[in-house]
């Protein structure tokens, strides 16, 4: 069995990845344009399962299934390989991008350009385009929120190590509820937009940056006034940021026939407002139990 050797770039042909029809299932669209290398999803899974015993075992399972059922199937489905490589797109960040994005989240009022750059019909990775969504900032800010919440509890002498687990699981569950509800609403209202599920997860994760700002201002000053002022400012800036980012994704292009779709257009606007204004509410909900009057 011959497998491509991933150390010799010149042997491997540059092949474009086959992209499924975007209306069917936008979840597993592979990204090809980062690091300038062909992004072979088979390589990702091969690296993860480079243990030869695992491969022998998988092959035995596949052969066994073929004997029993008479049908061939692949024990490592292609979609798993594609989803790993599509998640890698969101982690292709560097320090300059993170700095610019954090400034953009906390002070979005000066920026003029909000549209994403595309190259060959695929969005460009976050290293190159500041407006592209990523997973590094939401993930790190969610974990920082857990840490800072524990520090706040510690200064109030209410800290036990179980609080770490409690806060981490509340972050996870609230995220899942929010994303689930939003996807359900998208599905029920029958709105097809350019916004993919993975992008939505990223955009809903940017509120943790606001949460960290709110909590650190309370931690440093210990005053309720500082807490509410920072809550107000953070709410405004996150809403502004998200409205501008999502406006181009959810609302339809102005070049279409608008009079025909007036109802659907209104639904999109309501959905956009729901997404953006639910973020400050979440920030308030997840921080108020830490504040002691």
């Amino acid at each position, binding site marked *: *069995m*011959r*497998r491509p*050797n*991933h*150390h010799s770039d010149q042997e491997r042909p540059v092949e474009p990845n086959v992209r499924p029809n975007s209306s069917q299932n936008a979840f597993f669209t592979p990204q090809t344009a980062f*690091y300038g*290398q062909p*992004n072979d999803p088979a*390589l*990702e899974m*091969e*690296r993860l399962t*480079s*243990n*030869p015993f695992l491969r022998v075992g998988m092959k035995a399972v596949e052969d066994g299934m073929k004997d029993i059922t008479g049908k061939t199937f692949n024990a490592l489905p292609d979609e798993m390989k594609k989803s790993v490589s599509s*998640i*890698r797109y969101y*982690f*292709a*960040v*560097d*320090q*300059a991008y*993170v700095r610019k994005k954090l400034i953009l989240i906390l002070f979005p009022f000066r920026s003029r350009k909000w549209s994403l750059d595309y190259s060959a019909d695929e969005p460009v990775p976050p290293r190159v385009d500041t407006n592209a969504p990523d997973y*590094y900032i939401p*993930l*790190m800010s969610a*974990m*920082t929120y857990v*840490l800072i919440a*524990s*520090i706040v*509890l*510690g200064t109030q002498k209410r*800290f036990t*190590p179980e609080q*770490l687990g409690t806060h981490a699981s509340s972050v996870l569950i609230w995220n899942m509820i929010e994303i689930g509800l939003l996807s359900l609403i998208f599905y029920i209202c029958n709105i097809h937009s350019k916004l993919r599920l993975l992008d939505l997860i990223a955009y809903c994760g940017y509120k943790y940056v606001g949460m960290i700002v709110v909590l650190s201002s309370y931690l440093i000053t210990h005053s309720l006034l500082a807490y509410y002022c920072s809550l107000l400012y953070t709410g405004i800036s996150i809403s502004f940021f998200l409205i501008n980012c999502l406006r181009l994704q959810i609302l339809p292009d102005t070049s279409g026939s608008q009079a025909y779709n007036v109802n659907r257009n209104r639904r999109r606007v309501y959905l956009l407002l729901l997404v953006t204004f639910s973020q400050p509410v979440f920030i308030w909900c997840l921080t108020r139990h830490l504040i002691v009057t």
Partner: protein
Amino acid sequence: MSWNSGDFYNQQYIGLTSYELQEQYANGNFMPSSFQFNSQQFYSPNEYLSPTVSSTLDEIENTEPPLLEELGINFEHIYKKTKSILNPFATPDSSILDDVDLAGPLVFCLAFAFSLLLLGKIHFGYVYGIVTLGTVGMYALLNLMASSDKPCSGIYTTSVLGYCLLPMVILSFASFVFRFNGFFGMTIAIIFILWSSISASKLFAASLAMIGQQLLVAYPCALFYGVFALLTMF
């Protein structure tokens, strides 16, 4: 590496074929030619310590590796790694970058948990849980952020993160002696956290060739060590 996919399936058999093996026994020999003794050599007592016999004994002794090398404990590497952690601003020695060693991290984690015992907190389970979750998370993050041709194994991340726990062990032993309260305590803790995370990210960035991402790797390490500081302080 013998686990390269090409080598594993393309190995060739190197040695005698069965025909050649049979040939050795063809002329009435009951042992293969390499083990043939001249019968005079075999029986005469003054050739019991003959050079041919003793040279084969020497060969057997020389082909066995020394005990420490067989166990995988390399004191030179351990010393170099500890030195590179104690000085976070020096560039790491390239020989230690690929060495995976779990003995050091184990010792440091146990030392940290024991120092918490001195403070009156029995948090062995929490230390173990945080180390496990942190290592798995770091492994996932590094594999997603680094380029595809430089994967890192879970054991390597455990080794690096465990070695860089050394400053946190120093902090927790120090907090038994001094009392770190309030603003002063927070700044001391932050200094130690920065020390740990800079050395960890330096090792990661050097061995995984991550350009312009060292601070991005340092931040999750800082969060990881921050949890340990939290266990110490509160």
